[in-house]
């Protein structure tokens, strides 16, 4: 019986001060992860991340920015394997929604569903919280949207945000640079500049990843040559 299993109790329990320390520690894991950021423009959304890899590693074998659907993408900061689980679950949830309603899942709904999954892992037997924060970007009938989801399952809608190592500096930089009338191209340039702020060493098309969703509702990870072009424009 499930209740007899030694793992039938929740590993995430309250401390006397009213905190869930496992979630605090998960947030720590996130803040030690590489920086990711997202910027919502008038006509689209851009998300980007550092891809700091050892020299011998093949950059193309690691993809940090992923599609959840044709028009929704996601980037994370934290533990890569945990992010893979959420991406897989998110993709399946989106298709289940389509199967029932024959309509593409609204961004707000997939965010809610993924957030609920993450919350379940803070209140279930034998599991630990996810060690990632996600930035989910998409363009649907309600326009361009950017959401952050945390290990606790909390989610927030942002105009621009950053997660991971350099989040404080990046957010300060974004607050100065952001304006509501930004167009997608400006947002991509600003994203690159923001990443550059906290970047150790030389930033190239092989150690950053950029995902963009446009007004036509197509989310795409930019190719290395496209990233190279943008980097050239920013110099």
């Amino acid at each position: 019986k499930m209740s007899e299993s030694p793992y039938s109790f929740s590993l995430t329990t309250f401390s006397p001060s009213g905190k869930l320390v496992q979630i605090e520690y998960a947030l720590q894991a996130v803040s030690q992860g590489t920086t990711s950021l997202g910027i919502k423009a008038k006509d689209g959304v851009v998300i980007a991340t550092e891809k700091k890899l050892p020299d011998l590693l093949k950059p193309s074998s690691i993809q940090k920015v992923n599609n959840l659907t044709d028009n929704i993408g996601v980037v994370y900061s934290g533990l890569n394997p945990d992010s893979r689980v959420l991406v897989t679950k998110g993709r399946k949830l989106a298709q289940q929604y389509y199967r029932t309603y024959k309509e593409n899942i609204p961004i707000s709904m997939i965010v809610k569903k993924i957030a609920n999954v993450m919350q379940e892992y803070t209140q279930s037997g034998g599991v630990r919280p996810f060690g990632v924060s996600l930035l989910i970007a998409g363009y649907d009938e309600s326009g361009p949207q950017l959401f952050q989801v945390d290990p606790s399952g909390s989610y927030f809608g942002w105009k621009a945000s950053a997660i991971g190592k350099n989040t404080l500096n990046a957010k300060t930089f974004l607050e100065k640079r952001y304006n509501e009338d930004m167009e997608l191209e400006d947002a991509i340039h600003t994203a690159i500049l923001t990443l550059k702020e906290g970047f150790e060493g030389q930033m190239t098309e092989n150690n950053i990843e950029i995902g963009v969703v446009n007004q036509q509702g197509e989310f795409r990870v930019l190719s290395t040559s496209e990233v190279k072009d943008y980097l050239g424009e920013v110099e």
Partner: protein
Amino acid sequence: LAYMSILEYNGGAVLAMVGKNCVAIASDTRFGIQHQTVSTDFSKVFRITDKTFVGFPGLASDTQTMLNKLKFRIKLYSLDEDREMEPKIVSNLLQTLLYEKRFGPFFVEPVVAGLDKNNKPFISAMDLIGAPLLAEDFVLSGTASEAMYGMCETLYRPDLEPEDLFEVVSQCLLSSVNRDALSGWGAVVHVITADGITSRVLKGRQ
């Protein structure tokens, strides 16, 4: 009395038609158990959102059950998604609900009629296991279906104004159910426009 199909146990007829920036949906109001008429005010069409109606002709018990199942899903959807369900999505959801019972189906053959968020008319029908029919002119379902097809094909023309649409739908329905022993005993017609809904009760042959 012998009946060929459980769909003929209670009897009933539902019809929906597209007009100019409007839709109409109508049903007879007989509730019978085989040859015996039990009630004359049992409409098979129900308003499920502001501008969408669904009709469930077939086995009366399943009419009520499907209505309740659908209303349940629609209410949760509105709360979860903070928006009203469009008629097309209602139709898609119904198809899913019906197919889930593929090997022990609900004995209803639904008709959906409504205006989408841009007030564009939408109608659809489906069989008892959810196979959809998306039409631009009219859809119908029930024990008087053959007569209704004949009437609609003859009387229908596109872009009817709401008042004219009402007349055409009423004539199609009444003449058809008058030739069907299991349908009739009154009718109700709803006309949905961007401004609102007009519902009228018809008295047919008694």
